[in-house]
């Protein structure tokens, strides 16, 4: 096994290890956070609404906006003949 291989293996061990440690900590931290908030600052909760998370395909949000606005304009124009 050449040097690059060993480096890669080390990187994998360190990397996956760390990713898991980090996210496991985050799991507990998040759980604790939720409990604390529920305990000390309760609130009329809102149901988890459909995520708008669309990093790579945000277009699917905007065209609607665009469309909606275009519509608004259209109506607006038609109303105010120009």
């Amino acid at each position: 096994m050449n040097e690059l291989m060993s480096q890669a293996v080390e990187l994998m061990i360190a990397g996956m290890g760390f990713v898991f440690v980090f996210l496991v900590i985050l799991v507990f931290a998040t759980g604790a956070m939720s409990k604390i908030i529920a305990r000390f600052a309760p609130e009329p909760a809102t149901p988890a609404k459909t995520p708008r998370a669309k990093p790579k395909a945000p277009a699917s949000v905007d065209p609607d906006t665009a469309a909606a606005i275009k519509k608004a304009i259209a109506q607006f124009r038609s109303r105010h003949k120009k």
Partner: protein
Amino acid sequence: MTLWTGSGLFNIEIGQVIMIAVGFLLLFLAIRKGFEPLLLVPIGFGGILANIPEAGLALTAAENAIHFALKAGSTEFLAALAAPLDVAYQAGQAVTPELKDTFKEAVKEASYSDMAMANSIAQDAGYGHGMLYNFYSVIIGSTIGPLVIFMGVGAMTDFGPLLANPKTMLLGAAAQFGIFGTVLGAALLDWLGILDFTILEAAAIGIIGGADGPTSIYVSSVLAPHLLGAIAVSAYAYMAMVPMIQPPIMKALTSQKERAIKMSQLRPVSKKEKIVFPLVVLIAVVLFLPDAAPLLGMFCFGNLLRECGVVERLSDTAQNALINITTIFLGLSVGSKLMADKFLDAQTLGILGLGIVAFGVGTACGVLMAKLMNRFTKEAINPLIGSAGVSAVPMAARVSNKVGLEANPQNFLLMHAMGPNVAGVIGSAVAAGVMIKLLS
């Protein structure tokens, strides 16, 4: 006649023809097949521009000066340019074809300050940086572009589903095995003597497995800028192909019964939790992984703008005007890395091959992790949501939902899959931080 000797037809090289064809292919995939058009349209177009012969849109002032000096055989000027680049060339010496390669090498090796000196000599002589090179250095060279996109992504991300069921984060962690498995794969190819990679290159290629565009661009710009074009292209291409890549793997690793598992309705999540969560992530970054600070910091910042509810206008700008403007120039900048002489070699094929492996491995690990978790947790998890851990938001989550519906028409997994899906974004940003920490 200058116009003819300066025309593309007269100067075009086969490599440029091929790369221009590749550019058109990307445009075709983006426009007709809907492959991540927001990025692949600018990338494809930028790729074409970068390969216009004689235009040198993706070159530095020095590279442009060298190109024309070699063509015109103006030896004094060549000698002037040779000095800061440590090229052994005296005025008057013959302009051999080898000289061209010598200069190309020298430019690749040149340090920041040597390059700056060569550029200022070229600029004194009236040469300028190419348009795409300017875009690249401002948007990617400074790392600002991917970070602004990541901020916008944060402003578009709803962590509700994740907060409702935090343990699904582990699926997002497992899927990152795709990243490191690919690093191993690259090392293997190198060991077998099929291709040559440095550990930096291997790591940059691995990040494709993160299935997250800005993260891939950020990491490769730091670890292996010369591979950025190929890495970004395959990252976006494979993200678009997730609906083809994942289902077979998901089905192979799960039984009909597992795929039909119904998951309990998610609990409602309070506004306060959503506001505090990005800050919790930020604290974790502060304490454990400073090197992920730029990526996760901007991501959490964007999410806080979204959730805090008092800066609507900033959140709105981060999700629209700002991310759109950045996307346009980021895409063109990535395209500038699709230059024939830098893109057309075996490594690129290796990268394309390894990229799809990365997605496959990540998908598999996510699913297997879900099955593993079912051993220990009372309330069952449908293993199909594990595949969403690779991120590729929101495509992968939709795939989980679709495959779930095939197995059980009453089984809506979308919301449950969004948890691991966004966790995957955090996961690959963490992996990116670790790589940068250990390697750069």
